[in-house]
């Protein structure tokens, strides 16, 4: 049975993971676009991404576009697995198959 993931369940981090999980494999988003698409109102985006990176769910990649430095967040394979498992857990709660949800 799937289990709850406290790291992903936090509201802003759940939105960030949802956005990154919908991206094609290996494709990331820079912080500005990630924040806009996730509609993350929390100003502490860097800290949330740091938490996800520490858990191994997101990789922060730095490269250059021309001469301009770019920092991108990319979901990892472990991140996709954890995200899918957490969403399955939420669906299980709604379906009433998680006994200790109440």
């Amino acid at each position, binding site marked *: 049975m799937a289990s709850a993931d406290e790291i992903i369940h936090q509201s802003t981090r*759940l939105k960030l993971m949802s956005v990154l999980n919908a991206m*094609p494999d290996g494709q990331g988003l820079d912080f500005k676009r990630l924040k806009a698409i996730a509609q993350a109102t929390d100003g502490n985006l860097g800290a949330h991404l740091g938490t996800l990176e520490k858990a191994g769910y997101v990789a922060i990649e730095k490269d250059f576009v021309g001469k301009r430095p770019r920092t991108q967040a990319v979901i990892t394979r472990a991140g996709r697995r954890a995200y899918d498992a957490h969403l399955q*857990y939420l669906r299980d709660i709604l379906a009433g198959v998680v006994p200790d949800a109440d």
Partner: protein
Amino acid sequence: MTIQPEEAARALRDAEAAADRSAAAVGYQRSSQYLILWGLVWAMGNLAAFLRLPLGPYAFPALMLIGVVGSFIIGMRAGRDGRRRNYALQSLVIAAAFVLFANGVQVVAEIRSLAVAEAVICLAIGAGYMVMGVYMGWRMSAVGVALMIAVITGWLYAREQFFLWMALAGGGGLILGGLWLRKV
């Protein structure tokens, strides 16, 4: 960690909405390059027709060929690893469908006027974008609506300068639409 059903439902709704916005952004990003490319093709073809250049009649077919090759290259660059061939093939099929439709409608409807052919083709493309927008996101539908309005307005109020109008409003509009899609 205990999660109540109401909280689970709200989290799932938020997750789904964020995933939808992300998928739309990916689609917009990919489509924007094609819109800009075909906007340039359209603008240059119409300018050639408007200026009555010596090789004007060959401008559109030559530019369409450039558009097809360009679409293929964009598809190759967009794909990664195993998907590279799929994207390139998709781009090629879409571009081929466009060229076949553009030429087929002229043959079947026996259209002799380039302006009529262009108006009909652009209306069909605008309608296509509107339908794509239903699945991809509202911005794509908005580009389709804008293209159709540009064609109808030009046909009604700028028929004498139709090619110039279509170069600016049609081709230019597609380029602007492509740039707008990137801004998500």
